[in-house]
């Protein structure tokens, strides 16, 4: 009956099934839902387009993915994707996504979040979801500002950024998301930028294939409230898109931390990638052990055994 945690996680689920020739992968048209409500030019469009590409490329079906978000401009994401999705509350996408991941090993769980959503109100959840290594992919679209609430300082706003809550320029030290992710135990940490589509797609794909908590920090410009924030990372705007050096050992935590610490805009690509047992696997192990002790019994009979001891 309820073997909820003992099924094998399905990596690229659709691939196997489509191999039978029964069902084709989805077309872009089939994945597109509402027209995005973002401002023209918003970096988030690019992330959405590449998510569609990922679904197409990897032949993921509607019912095999869940797109989950919190609140913010970036968190509007699920409405634009034709698949099961949830638009949850501000800052709490990760525990919600964890509930999906831990109870449904057959689904690909993608969470999309903003810098305020993930690192301010949801900061504690970021720490604990990463530390527990719960299988899912989190993409944070970092625009270094609160977009939806119209230009307040965010936890990633650089010192001196003039917002409506710091008209004289931000005075609080910003978070470096990649550094933070590594230090709290994320098993996959990558940085990308919405202005580099191929890089975004490759990064999301690597994240999806990671068995564990995969975190993609994606610079995504808010053209409305922080225009030009990432020009320094955009060769078309005179900046430099520095990829992670080929020589970097992604399993070396210290090296990854050092690389992640480089001054803005830093390095792009996979900074850290290690395999360690996921919480999903650990819980499944606990279940297998305990269920083994009651093999062959129906659920009511297991409960009966407990009740027999309570007489």
């Amino acid at each position: 009956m309820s073997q909820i945690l003992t099924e094998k996680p399905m990596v690229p689920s659709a691939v196997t099934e489509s191999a039978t020739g029964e069902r084709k992968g989805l077309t872009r048209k089939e994945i597109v839902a509402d027209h995005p409500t973002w401002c023209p030019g918003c970096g988030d469009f690019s992330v959405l387009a590449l998510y569609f590409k990922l679904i197409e490329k990897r032949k993921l079906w509607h019912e095999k993915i869940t797109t989950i978000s919190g609140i913010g401009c970036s968190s509007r994401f699920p409405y634009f994707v034709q698949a099961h999705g949830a638009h949850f509350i501000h800052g709490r996408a990760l525990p919600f996504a964890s509930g999906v991941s831990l109870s449904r090993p057959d689904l690909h769980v993608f969470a999309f979040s903003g810098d305020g959503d993930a690192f301010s109100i949801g900061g504690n959840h970021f720490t604990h979801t990463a530390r527990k290594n719960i299988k899912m992919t989190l993409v944070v679209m970092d625009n270094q500002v609160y977009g939806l609430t119209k230009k307040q300082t965010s936890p990633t706003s650089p010192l001196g950024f003039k917002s409506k809550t710091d008209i004289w320029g931000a005075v609080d030290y910003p978070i470096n998301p990649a550094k933070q992710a590594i230090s709290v135990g994320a098993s996959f940490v990558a940085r990308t930028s919405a202005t580099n589509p191929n890089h975004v797609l490759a990064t999301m794909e690597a994240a999806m294939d990671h068995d564990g908590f995969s975190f993609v920090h994606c610079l995504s410009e808010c053209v409305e409230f922080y225009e030009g924030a990432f020009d320094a990372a955009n060769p078309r705007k005179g900046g430099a898109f520095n990829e992670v050096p080929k020589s970097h050992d992604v399993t070396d935590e210290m090296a990854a931390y050092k690389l992640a610490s480089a001054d803005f805009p830093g390095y792009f690509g996979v900074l850290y990638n290690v395999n360690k047992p996921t919480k999903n696997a650990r819980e499944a192990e606990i279940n297998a052990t305990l269920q083994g002790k009651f093999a062959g019994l129906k659920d009511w009979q297991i409960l009966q055994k407990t009740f027999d001891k309570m007489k």
Partner: protein
Amino acid sequence: MSNATMGVPSSGGAQKVSRINEAVIRIAGNSQDGIQAIGGFLARLAGRSEQEVMTFMTIPSTISGGPSIFQVRIGSGEVLTAGDDADVLLAFYQHSYEGHINSLKKKGIVLYDSDHVVPKPEWQSDYHHVGIPISSLTVEAIGGTAKDKGKNIYSLGLIARMFDLNIPKLEKLIGERFTGKDPSILNNALAAFHAGYANSPSNVVETFQFSDSTKHGVQQVVMNGNEAIGYGLIAAGVRFGAGYPITPWTDIMELLRRELPKYGGSFIQCEDEIASVSMALGASFAGRVAVTGSSGPGISLKTEAIGWAVMAEMPLIVINVQRGGPSTGMPTNIEQSDLNIAINGGHGDAPRVVLAPANVEDCFYMAIEAVNIARKYNTPVFFLTDQGIATRIEAFAQPDLEKVCQDITPDFTPVASHKPYDLAAKDGVTPHVKPGTRILDGKYPIATGLEHDEYGHPSGSPKVHMLQNAKRRIKLQALGATLPLPKIYGPPEGNVLLVGWGSTEGPIREAVDRFRAAGDSVSAIHLRHVNPLPNGLENIFSGFHHVLVVEMNDEGLYGYGQLGAVLRARYCDAKIQGVNKTDGLTWKVKEIVELVKTKVRK
């Protein structure tokens, strides 16, 4: 010892044996003395002997232990409360003796550890004093090192002798309790028990024998309210939960964490209560109707997400083991002051279901009902208990588990099309189609906290907001129409109707019995479905001159208490008044009787 009947002189001549229908035994000591264990043994013995039993305990609020009591009421007939006053007080220390002597009936027996207690001459005439050097006799029986562990079992032997309890059954219970441990522990326990049993102090003038139980052939299980909820949820088919520790909710999460894996499920300890409710909602969204819970401040933290569950129409069970509030409040005390947050907590118009089981057995069956309501109506269901029912032990007929247990494994059969928030749905009830389900027309739902159209896409239309608000309301009104009216305890017409909810059913009924025995016209109803209320309560109210709502919460700014205010709002009936208290303890029957008298006199 109420209903003490004919004294039968025993063969020894000096001691008399009285047949009794019930007894209230209060054990007072420090929590580390294992007094809960004695109470637990007595409760389980009663359960196995087809007797009724109810316990009451206080937990010290500090971890290092401290004064604590455990009271057991065992009866051959119906037992509604743990008893106002004790027949026997077992006192381990001076503070136990002095602090609890006034909970003993006049002429009751105080059994005290004469190694620690110096009895007061002025109390000698009111209470029958029996001093026994319990500590030193335990040392004598099992040696010094084990004495702290054995004192309670030694005392259990004393009580067993005094009440002529079934020794083989008790030995078996002791055996079960200590199996698997070092055999010397079991041997010590049995040695202490037998030594206590063999000790027959010369000044015990009376021993007792319970009359035969009125129940026959009933297999009973014995557990506390928190356990009953945990197992009820498992029987209901719940296989996922998430929580964060807080007294007195913690026991439930510990139980589920330990038990659910046996059934292929999981309970996750989260970083806080917000994460817990969010994770549970994620699992519910994914198709596994999930449980979260808390007490006091943790409930406050969950309110935003519960509002989302109302808006997104997601099933969820929220267990609230109430304690004294506000803020950290009185963590180990009893209160029913979370009715308002359960019904209304959070912003916006967010109707949800609130259930309140009346006793331990009810905790088990109502947990199943809660799950089924949540599934059918896709709504969060608050399950309100309190510290009293959480820790009190009762015996009840063993459920027929084969019949009762449900399999609620989700169904992923493809559907042709799906409108998650269909405004044309009958009674406003729409099904939740889970991820994993193919929707053949290619239009997939978004579960959302934004006001939305029928597909779950955001809508700022005033008309849509009104219609969706109505949908969320109508489905609960439809549920209300299916709920049974509570049975009236006592005649359906009279002077006073007492209205209670949750854990207070026992003392309220006993108060009714006491009133009626004195010739007063008092009846009672007990509400287990608190939001929505069943329809037709006004017809019950119309049979009485006074409707008094008995609750363990403050009377509030306007004087009606929390449920009282709800009933007043619904029925606009001036005869509805509140009977309230917030002393952190369960109702004593005499308190209800006295407060009701003053209200009716006014």
